């Protein structure tokens, strides 16, 4: 029994308005790349801090204390390691898959977005869209925690879920600007599930692969690369400071919007895209499987010279796989981009996510 209580850690989750003290946040931070996740380990405990990117004063703290713990500002206590988890985003699910912890996943948003065959087999409960999840289904799933993406400013079900004893943990991996920073969120899942060691090994492996691919890339391949597509009246593309732009840069590709500022999406008129269309070698992520579909969705796309003249690649043939794995495996995405940067010499059989859009 004693051993049981020693192993049984109590997770304390607290959301406070107090800013992170520099001392606690910087000292012994396990995370190297992440902007919004900090994990500090001491002999006594582990402190996980998740900062809201839009409000520096909002920090979600998760403390994994040892037996001599002192709980401050605690709002919740749930048993650790987490045995039953609900994840509302594909990227979270991918991280659990990478840690081979699919059996911890008891609820997801929608099964039709699942790629991992093991999860499909386990058939977790469907909760619905993040802002519309069914509380009754959460209870039915017996999830101890829900990891959500916080795409909206708040998670509107949080208050009710707290009342019924379910801890809600925000995940801001999508706000990271460095691909390895995003992948580093695998550590959160590692610590929550008691598999921190495996998570650290996994992340070290991802980082090593990423660095290796990056080091092997020729300095400048001058492959002029465009990303995105027309949605409605505008062409949406990743901003120059975004996670995706960083990946393209690390792959040695010359992203046409690299000098633009912003971590979110850029919106340009079709006219502007047409004006800068000369010399585009590679068009990534148009969001469709075929050129016919691109033209059908936006008939004026036929005017784009690079529709025929450039190499056109997308992950759409395996979207679920891409969304599930690309965040935690940026090394695989980088490998794809690096291969595509070789132009005619690219070995398309090596591509993990991407396929030519015919």
């Amino acid at each position, binding site marked *: 029994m004693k051993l049981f209580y020693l192993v049984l850690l109590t997770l304390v989750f607290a959301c406070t308005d107090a800013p992170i003290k520099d001392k606690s946040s910087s000292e012994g931070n396990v995370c190297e790349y992440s902007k919004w996740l900090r994990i500090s380990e001491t002999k006594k405990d582990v402190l996980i801090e998740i900062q809201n990117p839009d409000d520096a004063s909002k920090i979600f703290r998760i403390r994994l204390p040892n037996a001599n713990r002192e709980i401050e500002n605690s709002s919740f206590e749930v048993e650790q390691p987490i045995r039953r988890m609900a994840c509302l985003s594909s990227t979270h699910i991918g991280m659990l898959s990478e840690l081979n912890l699919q059996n911890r996943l008891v609820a997801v948003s929608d099964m039709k977005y699942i790629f991992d065959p093991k999860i499909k087999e386990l058939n977790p409960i469907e909760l619905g869209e993040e802002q519309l999840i069914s509380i009754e289904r959460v209870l039915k799933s017996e999830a101890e925690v829900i990891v959500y993406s916080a795409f909206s400013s708040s998670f509107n079900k949080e208050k009710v879920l707290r009342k019924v004893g379910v801890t809600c943990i925000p995940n801001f991996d999508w706000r990271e600007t460095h691909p390895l920073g995003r992948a580093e969120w695998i550590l959160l899942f590692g610590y929550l599930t008691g598999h921190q060691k495996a998570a650290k090994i996994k992340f070290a492996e991802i980082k090593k692969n990423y660095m290796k691919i990056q080091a092997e890339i020729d300095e400048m391949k001058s492959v002029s690369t465009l990303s995105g597509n027309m949605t409605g009246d505008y062409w949406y593309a990743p901003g120059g400071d975004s996670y995706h732009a960083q990946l393209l840069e690390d792959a040695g590709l010359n992203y046409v919007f690299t000098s633009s500022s912003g971590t979110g999406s850029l919106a340009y008129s*079709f*006219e502007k895209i*047409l*004006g800068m269309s000369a010399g585009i070698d590679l068009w990534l992520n148009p969001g469709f499987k075929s050129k016919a579909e691109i033209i059908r969705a936006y008939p004026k796309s036929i*005017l784009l010279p690079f529709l025929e003249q450039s190499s056109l690649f997308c992950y759409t043939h395996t979207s679920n796989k891409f969304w599930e794995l690309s965040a935690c495996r940026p090394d695989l995405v980088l490998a794809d981009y690096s291969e595509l940067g070789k132009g005619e010499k690219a070995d398309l059989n090596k591509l993990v996510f991407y396929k030519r859009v015919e």
Partner: protein
Amino acid sequence: MSSNRSNKVLLLLVLISILLLAGMGLRIGDIPTDFLDVYHAVFNYSEQNLSELIIREIRLPRITIAIIAGAALSIAGMLMQTLFQNPLAGPYVLGINSGSSLMVAMGILSGVGFFNSELGLIGSALLGAFVFGLFVLFTASFIRSQIGLLLFGVMLGSFVGAIITILEASSQVDALKAFALWSMGSLNGVSVDQLPVISFVFVLGCLGTLLIVKPLNMLVLGEEECRLMGFNVKRLRLSIVFITALFTGLVTAFCGPIAFVGLAVPNLTRMLFKTQNHFLLLTANLLFGAFFVLSCDLLIQALSETILIPINALTSLVGAPFVIYILIRKLR
């Protein structure tokens, strides 16, 4: 200056403004072009020249459809207001637009082959507008109160909205996205190849309206007076519904919903010209409607670096306060 002359001067000023705005719209954009490029794009087009390509394939269809959509919706609104003798009537308020929206929603969200094609969507929008136009006309024979008819239109809109919500709830993400984008309205979807067909239908509608100008003038005095003057009121009502459906369906099919134009502009022209002469009202609605939507489009282009505004949102932002003003004036 006589009223007749001042009307002509005002209309001429609006016409000149439209021409100036259209010229500006053709010349100004993200890619710098000059008037020589505009001239070449229109009269001596070379596909190899990027500036000419942009003007001809992107700006020209956008400017043209802005003019046509504004004019068509305003004329449709004017016809509805005369038919129902109600200044608050319009294709959007009475639910005719809802008919188009419902049919388009069924096309996009059901994903059924023909209805999801370009031709299918245009046909659906026209059919929806016409069927709902007839339905409103039929119901109007039972509802004598002006406010009652408007309430009926609002209810019809809500009913259709509920059906669309059900369709959305069981739709795929891609179809939902396509429908959401369609419902924002856009002047960018029209290609230069579609302009002749759109212009032809528009001219047809204008000619149709021109042919019924005299009975429209009589209809203002009342159905009985109109009948006594030898006009077939039943046929006139059907003609009005048909022309309104044609205009509304045309705009909805190619641009999506564009709200408040058909309500605000006809009221504005009636306030400015203080006339029931439908020839003058037709001309005024044609010009003021075109001017209004064209101005909205240019404003959207000018603000696009700062904020992205769908056309349906901007026309509502400008049109709704004006309609509220009319409502207050009417109810006071």
